[in-house]
């Protein structure tokens, strides 16, 4: 019974939001309520998520697992951010600088590690995939894209070589659009399957 009720609520709300695109004026009183409720739920889920994060580190400390030193640092930083966030107003410059002063350098450090890893990964490509048409195509198109992005290759505007260069520069975007179209179709079908209750991840099928 509970499962049917959940499914029905999900279906009705989904259809109502969909109908809102067709009849925005007729449903103008209902849609904001649904969207506000959804925002409230997402906010509550965010708080629960932070609870998961804290619990994970507390458990790691309690169980004396490897990496507990980092958990101590996390919990101290979390407490400082929480107390400062509650005590100071949201737009406070000191609070913003405190958070960004830690977040930006740490994320920049991680990104620099990622850049090195990307270089190593590209060198591993042939070892992982072998000499296949796809791997050769991937490697050569990545290299060519780099060369084109550098901007060293220039051609006289209006000439055939300029047209060819422009086509080669657009080529990666054409491929990306093809993949994105396929993913959009896949996403549409997943959404419809859940909305029409063909797929029910929140209960038994």
């Amino acid at each position, binding site marked *: 019974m509970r499962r049917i009720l959940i499914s029905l609520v999900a279906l009705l709300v989904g259809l109502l939001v969909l109908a809102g*695109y*067709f009849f925005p004026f007729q449903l103008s009183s209902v849609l904001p309520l649904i969207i506000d409720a959804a925002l409230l*739920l*997402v906010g509550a*889920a*965010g*708080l*629960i*998520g*932070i609870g*998961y*994060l804290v*619990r*994970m580190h507390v458990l*790691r400390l309690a169980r004396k*697992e*490897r*990496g507990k030193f*980092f958990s101590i640092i996390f919990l101290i930083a979390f407490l400082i951010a929480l107390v400062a966030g509650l005590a100071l107003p949201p737009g406070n410059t000191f609070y913003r600088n405190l958070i960004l002063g830690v977040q930006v350098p*740490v*994320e920049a450090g*991680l*990104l620099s*590690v*990622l850049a090195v*890893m*990307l270089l190593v*990964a*590209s060198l*591993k*490509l042939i070892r*992982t*995939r072998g000499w296949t048409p796809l791997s050769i195509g*991937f490697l050569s198109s990545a290299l060519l894209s780099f060369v084109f992005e550098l901007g060293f290759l220039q051609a006289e505007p209006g000439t055939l070589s300029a047209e060819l260069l422009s086509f080669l520069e657009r080529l990666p975007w054409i491929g*990306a659009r093809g*993949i*994105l*179209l*396929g*993913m*959009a*179709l*896949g*996403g*549409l*079908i*997943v*959404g*419809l*399957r*859940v909305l*029409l209750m*063909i*797929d029910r*991840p*929140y*209960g*038994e*099928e």
Partner: protein
Amino acid sequence: MIDWFLAGWVVIGVSAVLLLLLTLFFRLRKGYAARRLTSVDAFRTSQFVSIEQGRFRQLLLGDQLWTSAYPGLGLQALTILPKLLDVESAVDGGLSLSAGEGSLAVFARQIIEGRYTDGFSTALSSSGVRSMMPGVTPLSLTAGMLSELSAHPHGSLGLLGHLSPSVLLLAETVQNQKGHVFGAGGSLSAQAVLYPVVQDLLLGETVYMLPGLIDPGAGHQAGWMTEDILRFLLICGLIAGAVLKMIGVL
């Protein structure tokens, strides 16, 4: 001029009707044959091998439930989840689910609870599957996951949902521990950075085939066929549009 808003709704309407009709059709008749993907078989094998070797398994459900560029990826990760929570998965308590957003973590927990209270033996409990949120932004998620993956040697890592290119670091970490990495999600950039290092990687729309490949049902088969029909119509439309543009009609 074409009303693209209306065209979009026509596509949604046609897809919904096709999906319903084909689901009904496949329930009554023989299903729609889809090709097997060796990557999916390798992923399932790595899960069982990890259990036998007493190693941990990790499923990353992505860093966001919804994004405007990839709206279905978070939901796709959640629809795969019930297919991966079979009886064996909770036996040793070595399966962990991670997410980078509160709503994803909460939904994942709900799916685990529902799965183990509804269908399986009372001897098993949902506590056999750990769910956690190692970080709240894509990079903090990666940092938290790196710490978790380094603390326990992992035999299998499944990358699902919306991911950022920083997942490359996670894939490298698990591979250095002689673990298996399987990718079935990610943004375009994440798929591009994983391609050189991850052997078992689903690209583009094949990501959305995963639930049906693990557990084929009439609904999934109808989804595949609807997608194929839409893809065919889209290709025809693109070619027709290009021809009309070339001859100056559009």
